[in-house]
């Protein structure tokens, strides 16, 4: 029989989740563009962003999570709990930083909190992987974890999540747009090639599923690197649209900023196995 899990064990997991939310969330919590996005963003984009976070967090709970989970119900509960932790972490830190002021309108405060709660919640779900000690009872056995991560769709999901997570850290900043302005189309093309090469190198050396079967470079490139980079570009486009970087841009300009953002995105996709 499975042992009963106590409130105390769960609270221990929650504490770790909070640690993860702060650890992974602080760069964005200390980024001023994120504070202003809370009230300059179109409310429908922010609402969509919060809604889409739920299935993403569900997936992350399945593959990583802040504690060992059993079955989809458990993962759904943890996805929502991670969001609650994300909101709490964002509220505490933004209050301490003086970003949230008592006199502000409800809309402004809700906007500032919810845009930060999502990355913080992702951090909460990465906590177990990053913060649990080796041999901690709350860790899945290595075989168990590998079982879940086997499979092509799982690999692609992890890559997309990794891309979203890293690209998100720079996406709101002015620098992304500024770098795109400074680049010529040739440099942008070179950056895209460099990103793909880097993604391939990381994917191959970290041993994605392909390497277990001793796939050749060409196979791994076609199976993981190319679709991986395509996913990175899609994630970056979505993030840019959400943050309003895509508004009023020409197609060429949009392609340039997407390539710039896809650089950290590709690193995140490649390193997904380390992060998630």
């Amino acid at each position, binding site marked *: 029989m499975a042992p009963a899990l106590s409130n105390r064990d769960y609270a221990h997991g929650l504490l770790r989740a909070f640690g993860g939310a702060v650890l992974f969330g602080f760069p964005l919590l200390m980024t001023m563009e994120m504070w202003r996005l809370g009230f300059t963003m179109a409310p429908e984009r922010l609402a969509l962003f919060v809604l889409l976070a739920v299935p993403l967090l569900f997936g992350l709970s399945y593959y990583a999570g802040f504690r*060992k989970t059993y*079955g989809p119900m458990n993962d759904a509960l943890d996805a929502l709990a991670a969001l*609650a932790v994300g909101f709490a972490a964002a509220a505490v830190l933004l209050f301490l930083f003086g970003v949230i002021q008592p006199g502000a309108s409800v809309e402004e405060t809700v906007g500032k909190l919810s845009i930060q709660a999502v990355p913080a919640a992702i951090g909460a779900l990465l906590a177990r992987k990053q913060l649990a000690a080796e041999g901690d009872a709350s860790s899945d056995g290595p075989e168990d974890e590998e079982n879940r991560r086997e499979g092509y769709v799982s690999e692609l999901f992890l890559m997309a999540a990794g891309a979203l997570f890293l690209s998100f850290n720079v996406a709101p900043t002015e620098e992304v747009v500024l770098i795109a302005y400074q680049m010529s189309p040739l440099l942008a093309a070179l950056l895209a090639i460099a990103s793909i090469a880097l993604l391939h190198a990381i994917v191959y050396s970290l041993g994605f599923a392909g390497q277990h079967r001793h796939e050749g470079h060409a196979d791994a490139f076609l199976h993981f690197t190319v679709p991986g980079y395509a996913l990175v570009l899609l994630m970056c486009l979505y993030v840019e649209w959400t943050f309003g970087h895509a508004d009023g841009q020409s197609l060429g300009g949009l392609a340039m900023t997407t390539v710039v953002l896809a650089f950290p995105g590709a690193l995140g996709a490649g390193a997904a196995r380390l992060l998630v």
Partner: protein
Amino acid sequence: MATKTRTNKAAEPTKGPRSPLLEWIMAGLGLALVLAVLGVLGRAMMDGRDEVDVTLRVTETRLVGGRWTAVVEARNTGGAAAARLEIEGRVGEETAAFTLDYLPPRGRDTGVLVFSRPPGGGTALTVRPIGWTEP
């Protein structure tokens, strides 16, 4: 050890420990927060956010270090945010100005105008917004 209870998820789908009460509470809290956020954003969507509507009010004037300062509160009653909002004040021939980086929808912020002569009294202090950009 609990770590070995399940290696094949499909065969034994829900053989985990029962969820403790705290787990349900936290999940409920998360769900409530998501719904609350969607509610607030939904209301903002209904209101429409196409215009910035700035109202200015002088809340305080006083003499500080030989200069007269006037504290101006800017309030945005519209649904859209204003960026780099420039506000100008005038006492007789003398003008003073400040810029607010952002003024959120339904938000407020304050700035200070500095004059060499006392505002109010004989010459009235007038304030007006000069312009802003859409962020």
